[in-house]
C-alpha cells in the first residue's frame, strides 16, 4: 500500500532557528496518527508544510503522491487550522455552503454536514455569535467535505467539551474505516492514547519518539506502578511481603521496573485471600512524554 503522506528528512528554519530538524514520517491509508509536542515543538509548522501553505528548506514531502499544495493534492486533503476562524457576518450554513462549492460539491449538503457535528440548531445564526467550541465544529464540518484522503487536524479537540470530544473521535473512527489517513496534533495526551494507531513525539523540531503506545512504553522502560488493596487487617502482612511499598491505611502502592512485573504479581497472588484487589497502572503518555522530552534536554 502506498502511503498517503510521506515525509523524509524535512527541515525548516525561521530566521535561523530550526522549527523542524530532519523529520521523517509516513502515514498509511486508514491510520490515525497523533502528533504530540509542547508549544513551539513544530507541530503547526509541519502541518502547514504538508498543506503547501509555507515553503520548506530541505527534504521531501509527498501528499497522495503529489507535491504539497499542488491542485491535485489540495483536492484530496482537508485541513482544520489551530484556531479555526470564519467570517463573522456569515451563518454556519452559508460558510459551509461556500466551502462545498469550492470543492465542487452541492451547497445543499451544508445542513447535513452541520448536523453531523451537532450544529444543526445554530446553522442559520451568524458565526459571530458562536462560541469557540461551535466555531471548532464548523471547522470540523468543513474538514469532512467530499471524502478527503488525508485529514490534517491541528489541535482539533481544543475548545470541545468531553462529550463532544468523544463524538469527534467516533467521527474519526468512521473516516479511518473508510480509508482516510488522519494526522492530528494534540496537547490532551490522555485522550489520544486509546484513539490513535500511532504516536509521534516532536520536541524542539525533532522527532524524539514514534510508535504505538506499547512501543513507546517499552522503549521508555518506565516503572510500572501497582496498587494493592488489602483485606481488613492484612495490610501489615502484605507490606512485609512487598518491600518498598508505600502504605496508606489498607492501600499499598509499589513502583517496580517493567522486568520485575510478573514476578511481583506472582508474589502478590501467593498471598491469597489477604488481597482484596490489585491494579496494574502502566506509565501514562504524560510520563513517557516527560521522559523523552527530558532525555532530549528540553
Amino acid at each position, binding site marked *: 500500500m502506498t502511503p498517503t503522506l510521506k515525509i523524509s528528512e524535512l527541515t525548516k528554519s525561521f530566521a535561523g532557528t530550526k522549527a523542524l530538524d530532519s523529520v521523517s514520517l509516513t502515514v498509511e491509508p486508514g491510520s490515525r496518527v497523533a502528533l504530540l509536542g509542547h508549544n513551539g515543538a513544530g507541530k503547526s509548522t509541519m502541518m502547514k508544510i504538508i498543506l*503547501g*501553505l509555507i515553503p520548506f528548506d530541505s527534504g521531501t514531502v509527498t501528499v497522495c503522491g503529489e507535491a504539497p499544495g499542488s491542485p491535485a493534492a*489540495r483536492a484530496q486533503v482537508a*485541513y482544520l487550522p489551530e484556531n479555526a476562524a470564519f467570517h463573522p*457576518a*456569515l451563518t454556519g450554513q452559508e460558510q459551509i455552503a*461556500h466551502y462545498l*462549492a469550492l470543492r*465542487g460539491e452541492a451547497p445543499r449538503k451544508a445542513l447535513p454536514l452541520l448536523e453531523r457535528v451537532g450544529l444543526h440548531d445554530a446553522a442559520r445564526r451568524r458565526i459571530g455569535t458562536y462560541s469557540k467550541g461551535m466555531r471548532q465544529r464548523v471547522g470540523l464540518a468543513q474538514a469532512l467535505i467530499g471524502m478527503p484522503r488525508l485529514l490534517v487536524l491541528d489541535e482539533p479537540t481544543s475548545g470541545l467539551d468531553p462529550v463532544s470530544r468523544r463524538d469527534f473521535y467516533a467521527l474519526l473512527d468512521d473516516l479511518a474505516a473508510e480509508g482516510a489517513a488522519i494526522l492530528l496534533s494534540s496537547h490532551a495526551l490522555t485522550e489520544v492514547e486509546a484513539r490513535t494507531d500511532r504516536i509521534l513525539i516532536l520536541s524542539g523540531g525533532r522527532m524524539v519518539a514514534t510508535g504505538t503506545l506499547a512501543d513507546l512504553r517499552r522503549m521508555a522502560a518506565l516503572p510500572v506502578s501497582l496498587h494493592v488493596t488489602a483485606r481488613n487487617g492484612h495490610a501489615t502482612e502484605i507490606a512485609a511481603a512487598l518491600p518498598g511499598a508505600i502504605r496508606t491505611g489498607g492501600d499499598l502502592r509499589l513502583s517496580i521496573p517493567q522486568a520485575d512485573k510478573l514476578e511481583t504479581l506472582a508474589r502478590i497472588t501467593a498471598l491469597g485471600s489477604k488481597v482484596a484487589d490489585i491494579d496494574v497502572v502502566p506509565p501514562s503518555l504524560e510520563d513517557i512524554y516527560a521522559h523523552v522530552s527530558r532525555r532530549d534536554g528540553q
Partner: protein
Amino acid sequence: MIRILATARTEFRIALRNRWVAISVILMALFSLVLSAAGSAPTGDLGVDRLSVTVASLTSLAVYLVPLVALLMSFDAVAGEVERGTLPLLLTYPVARVEILLGKLLAHLAVLTLAVVTGYALAALAAFRTDPASLAGLPALIRLTWTSVLLGATFLGAGYALSSLARRPSGAAGLAMGLWLGAVVLYDLGLLAAVVADNGGWFTTEAFPFALLANPADAFRLYNLAASQATAAAAGVGGAANTIPLWQSAVSVLLWPLLALALATAAFRKVTP
C-alpha cells in the same frame, strides 16, 4: 468558474451585511442629486441639452468618488482575511488565488455598478424633468456609466494589490488613502505645476499627453469629455482633451483594469499565510 461565482456570491452577501451596498449606493445617489440640483440653472443659450451638462459634472464627480468607494471596499480584501485568520484554510482549498480575487472583484464590481447606476439614473431623471431635449445626452451617460465601472475595477484591483502588500488592514487603509490622494488629487496638481514651470516647452507638448494617459483617472476624464464634446462645460485638464486622440484614452481606460488585476494577482501570490 463555479468557484469564482461561489466566491462572488459569498462576498456580495458580506458586502450587503457590512452595509457596503447601502453606503455606496446612498453616497452616489446623494452626490448625484446635489450635483444636478446645483447645476439646474437654465442652459438654453449654451446650445447643449441639460443631460449633457449633467454628464460633464458627473464625470468630475466620478473621478473622485468612484476610486474612493472602490478603494474603501477593497483595502480589506486580503489583509482582512489575514487578520481574521481565515486565509490559511481558504488557501488549502482547490481554488487558485486568481480565482479568489476574481470572485471578490465580481462582487465588489456589482456593488459599485449598482451605486453608479442608481446615482446616474437619479441625475438623468432630474435632467429629463427640466429639459425634454435631454435625450441627446443619453449616449454620453451610457459611456460615462461603463467607463465608471471600468475605473472602479482599476481601483478595486489596486486596492487588492495594496491589501496584499500591507497584510494588515490598518496599513492597507493607509496605503489606499495615499493612492487615492496621489492618483486623483496630487497627480494633477503636479502636472499643472510642471506645465506652468515648463512654459510651453518639451514637457507640455510631448510628455504631458502621455502623463495624462498613464493615470487611469485622467484617462477616464479625457475620454468622457472628449467623446461627449461637452468640453465647454468642463474646466481644468479638459482643454487637453482636444489634443489627444479619442482611441488613446479609450485604450487606457480599457487596459488599466487588466493591469491592476495582474498587479493584484502578483502581490497576492507573494502572501504566505
